[in-house]
């Protein structure tokens, strides 16, 4: 106690300026973690997919950074290839991206400090995708509040920038990689999520929601292709929450 107070006393209050950078770098360290590495392979796969679909190099990089969600970009490219109009693509991407809203709603209370300005949350929300969401839900609760925004930014923002470069690498080596390896690259992301999601699911309702989502996802995808994903979330999520709520009250 004496050691920490004597060291920290003179500079304890005006320090946040420096701490931000320290926290940012701490987040950046996870660029070498397994989730980040697996995502690199996914974006390499996406870069190759974009090239084979006839996209332009800079447009492909722009897709990665401006949208920061592989499913949205895959739908966009699929739409362009099939000659769909802008409105149709907009609607298809919007339907597939509804997940972002509950993800961000549940993420904001984890990352926010009492005085975090809204613009920082809006910027950070752009970098919230499945990988960084799982990362945040897992790591943030263990950190002091004031360090969470810079820590998450250090991971998620740099992750997006690095993956923009990796997309370019994937684009460049597209013809070199055998199709089978490209297929394996595309399998790595869902595989990784299956293995890590249970660790980010804390409550009974979270775990049940995963199970329901895995079961309902393919069923709804077959019977109600357009609305399948939304229904999976609403039906699976509501049921899981209801069961969790009943258990907590019992």
């Amino acid at each position, binding site marked *: 106690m004496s050691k920490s107070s004597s060291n920290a006393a003179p500079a304890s209050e005006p320090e946040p300026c420096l701490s931000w950078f320290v926290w940012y770098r701490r987040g950046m360290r996870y660029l070498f973690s397994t989730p980040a590495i697996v995502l690199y392979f996914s974006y390499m796969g996406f870069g190759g997919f974009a090239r084979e679909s006839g996209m*332009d190099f800079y447009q492909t990089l722009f897709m990665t950074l401006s*949208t920061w969600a592989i499913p949205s970009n895959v739908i966009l490219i699929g739409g362009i290839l099939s000659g769909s109009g802008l409105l149709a693509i907009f609607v298809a991407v919007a339907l597939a991206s509804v997940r972002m809203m509950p993800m961000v709603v549940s993420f*904001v*209370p984890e990352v926010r400090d009492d005085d975090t300005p809204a613009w920082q949350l*809006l910027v950070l929300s752009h970098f919230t995708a499945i990988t960084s969401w799982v990362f945040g839900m897992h790591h943030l609760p263990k950190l002091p509040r004031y360090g969470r925004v810079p820590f998450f930014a250090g991971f998620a923002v740099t992750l997006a920038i690095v993956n923009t470069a990796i997309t370019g690498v994937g684009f460049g080596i597209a013809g070199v990689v055998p199709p089978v390896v490209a*297929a394996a690259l595309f399998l790595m992301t869902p595989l990784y999520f299956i293995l890590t999601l249970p660790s980010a699911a804390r409550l009974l309702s979270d775990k049940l929601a*995963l*199970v329901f989502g895995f079961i309902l996802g393919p069923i709804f995808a077959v019977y109600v292709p357009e609305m399948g994903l939304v229904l999976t979330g609403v039906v699976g*999520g509501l049921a899981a929450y209801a069961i969790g709520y009943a258990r907590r009250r019992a």
Partner: protein
Amino acid sequence: MTVLFDSFDASLWPYVFILVGASLPTDMWRWLGVAFAGHLSDDSEWILLARAIANALVAGVITRLILFPTGALLDVPVWMRLVSVALSVTFFFGLWRNLLLAVFLGAACLVGLAVGFGI
């Protein structure tokens, strides 16, 4: 009238198309999420409900990526994809909780099966 990716010859048009066609419909949900989160605390009932819906949605996206994929994975039969996933999951939860190894094992299994059966 339908506005297409190559409707206009302007060099910036594809970027506008990407912004409106993919970035905006993805980001608008993120911004709505920030708006709806308001000042709710992380253990309020609404947040727990949102978390359950998010988990179900993410799980749904994942099964879709495996069962109804796009790109190169489409050329690999669905049973090979499922066997690879099953092997990786069994290894990870049953034998050794090493993420990187489990993911690469699944990927290697897919390559092995595809090459072995001559895809």
